[in-house]
């Protein structure tokens, strides 16, 4: 019993907020907390004329983006695998993945808006425009810009998840066998690789779908406002004390909507798998098309170029003094924004960094503790539970957490914000560390124990140094996840913690482009620095060890 106590405590720390959060959303929705949320929430939200439009828009953008993410991932895998472009993409995508959604969204706006960098590059020489055109708008009423933003941000996530699974599927051998049996490469992928790959990326796809259906920051920046997406609409309700019950009821309905979408995906999977099995039995070989490969390469290049261009435009705007339309580039530069100790940048950066560091550190300690407990048989192997916060819509959990925080008087507290960030960083840290932890040969520990080392000595001197690479990567990803958190900081921070994500989204409508760009660049740079350090630290450790060993061996020879 006592052996399992730490695992039970850790699970309680993680699971209780989820249960309490869901209860905290459900009870006001059912009218069980009249002081906090008076009225019949479900009736109020269903009677609101914006509800249906917002729901339909969420479905359209969320499902459309998810479908495109899956499609682009498959096309990229089939057309690029084993090519030189694939090697380049594998190196380019992880840093792009670290860039927060809000920063990419702002970059996209600055790139493709009517007064954006693309139009400026083409004007007036090609377009003839001397003023920004008013023929289209960002955000557009159809939610296309939101879909674009979600697709270019989420495709690398799914693609890298899929790429990580390929070595276990004997892809090269399957392709070789399939092709010598007469099948075209695309058919080999569709009949041999994808049916094995899909179950391994299903969870990631569902996480992406839940995110796309419920995202708030990107929808505020790129989505339409009348009607907005459902989660943005609910955010507008939750800020109005009289509509709290309606917001909670809407959050419950959003969670139900996401669950229904998951169910539809499962049903579709069954259908597609049945059809695929019948087709695989037909023996139809298919014809290989080099056009498909070219299309896939173009698509991947376009998607990555768009992300890089968006970030580049942000960088340009952050050092711009004057950039009149339709000039192709700024006519005056201002670097002092970065070097003058600007408090509108430094304060949110410090706030972001302290919260992210604390949350990442907590996540690392918790994940290492859990995995060690699991290794010693004191905790069960239950990976699925850590992903619950990523599968439940943020608004559905956070409205409840906010209500609970009010109730216990913890709202706005720094530790509350850190705790919330920890809940969202923990799944990623566990995801990365679990594989490495379980694969580490236990013989290392056995050998050390046989030499007389105790548990803690083996952990700190043998196991952790051997796992320094995944530990560094997990820490960097935890920092990136925390830096990108908008809604948890907004709802639990009570306006007292102005992180970069909060500043960026709230200042988007009013403050000038240069400051917004600087905020977005800073928000992108922090995770990138964490990634660079995660790459360099293990190398530095190895180099230091090599130097130390060389010194020791010289001293030994002399003696």
């Amino acid at each position, binding site marked *: 019993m006592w052996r399992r106590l730490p695992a039970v405590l850790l699970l309680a720390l993680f699971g209780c907020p989820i249960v309490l959060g869901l209860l905290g959303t459900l009870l006001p929705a059912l009218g069980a907390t009249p002081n906090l949320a008076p009225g019949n929430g479900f009736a109020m939200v269903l009677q609101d004329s914006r509800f249906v439009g917002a729901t339909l828009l969420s479905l359209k953008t969320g499902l459309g983006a998810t479908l495109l993410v899956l499609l682009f991932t498959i096309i990229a895998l089939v057309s690029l695998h084993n090519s030189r472009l694939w090697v380049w993409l594998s190196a380019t995508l992880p840093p792009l993945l670290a860039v927060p959604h809000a920063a990419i969204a702002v970059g996209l706006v600055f790139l493709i808006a009517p007064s954006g960098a693309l139009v400026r590059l083409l004007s007036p020489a090609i377009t003839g425009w001397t003023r920004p055109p008013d023929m289209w708008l960002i955000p557009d009423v159809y939610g296309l810009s939101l879909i674009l933003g979600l697709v270019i941000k989420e495709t690398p996530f799914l693609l890298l998840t899929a790429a990580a699974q390929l070595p276990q599927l*004997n892809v090269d*051998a*399957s392709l*070789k*066998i399939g*092709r*010598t*049996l*007469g*099948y*075209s*490469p695309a058919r080999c992928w569709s*009949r*041999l690789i994808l*049916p*094995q790959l899909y179950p391994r990326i299903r969870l990631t796809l569902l996480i992406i779908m839940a995110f796309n259906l419920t995202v708030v920051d990107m929808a505020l920046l790129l989505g339409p406002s009348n009607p907005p997406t459902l989660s943005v609409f609910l955010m507008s309700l939750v800020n109005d004390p009289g509509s709290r019950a309606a917001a909670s009821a809407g959050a419950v309905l959003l969670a139900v909507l996401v669950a229904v979408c998951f169910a539809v995906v499962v049903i579709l999977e069954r259908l597609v798998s049945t059809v695929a*099995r019948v087709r*695989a*039995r037909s*023996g139809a*070989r298919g014809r*290989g098309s080099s056009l498909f490969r070219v299309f896939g390469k173009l698509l991947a290049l376009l998607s990555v170029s768009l992300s890089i261009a968006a970030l580049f435009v942000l960088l340009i705007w952050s050092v711009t003094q004057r950039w009149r339309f339709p000039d192709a580039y700024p006519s005056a530069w201002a670097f002092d924004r970065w070097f003058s100790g600007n408090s509108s940048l430094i304060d949110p950066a410090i706030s972001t960094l302290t919260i992210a560091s604390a949350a990442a550190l907590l996540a690392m300690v918790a994940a290492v503790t859990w995995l060690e407990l699991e290794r010693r048989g004191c905790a069960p192997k239950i990976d699925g539970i850590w992903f619950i916060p990523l599968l439940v819509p943020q608004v559905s959990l956070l409205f409840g957490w906010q209500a609970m925080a009010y109730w216990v008087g913890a709202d706005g507290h720094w530790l509350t914000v850190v705790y919330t960030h920890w809940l969202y960083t923990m799944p990623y840290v566990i995801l990365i560390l679990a594989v490495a932890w379980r694969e580490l040969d236990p013989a290392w520990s056995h050998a050390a124990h046989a030499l007389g080392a105790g548990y803690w000595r083996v952990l700190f001197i043998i196991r952790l140094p051997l796992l320094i690479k995944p530990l560094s990567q997990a820490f960097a990803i935890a920092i990136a996840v925390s830096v990108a958190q908008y809604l948890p900081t907004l709802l639990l921070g009570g306006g007292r913690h102005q992180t970069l994500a909060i500043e960026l989204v709230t200042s988007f409508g009013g403050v000038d482009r240069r400051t917004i760009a600087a905020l977005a660049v800073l928000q992108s740079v922090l995770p990138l620095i964490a990634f660079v350090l995660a790459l360099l630290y293990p190398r530095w450790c190895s180099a230091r060890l090599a130097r130390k060993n060389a010194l020791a061996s010289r001293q030994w020879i002399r003696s």
Partner: protein
Amino acid sequence: MHPLHVNGLTLQLPGGQFLVRELTFRIEPGEVLVLMGPSGSGKSSILAWLTGTADPRICASGDVWLGDTCITSLPTEKRRLGLMLQQDYLFPHMSVGDNLLFGLRGGTRTERLAKVCDSLSNAGLEGMQGRDPSTLSGGQRARVSLARTLLSDPCALLLDEPFSRLDTAMREQIRRFTWDSAARLPVLLVTHDTFDAPEGATILDIGQSDAVGPVVRAEMKDAR
């Protein structure tokens, strides 16, 4: 059936080292050519080049013919060369029957199912079409893998150490099954073990040369 004819094959590594130089051979239907040599001498690279799946960094010249058709520039799937590797690579998400149906070319549904049943029966695996490949023994898997290759109606068979992972007792049985099944095809076998070669096969020994790395000695002799 047509003979498999390789003409003037030269394989060169990116560093300029020759793996194979001016290799020419011809395998008639029903004949087996055994390619032997030490590890790294280029045996598997020759098979990869024949199937069109060679590492693109390897510089290759020469051509390969099936009868009167030059297949050198055809994509892998059009060459009609059956391939069996060390591992059987039965697709784990398909049943034994589905693996065979995947290999089989053309025919109506009923014909296809009948052919699969016949093929399983020939391999001594009657009634196993619904089995999960992971529940089969190594020998059973090897037979299914060969049956799948043969059902794709290849014009020649390329075998890359297909018996090396089997235990001694199973080896002889699978060798016999293979040579009986592929009796009408030109067969190229890569192996380290001369006992893998059937009676009357020809051995092509790939030796070492200090100056240019492993090169083909093109020395033909009767097996055993």
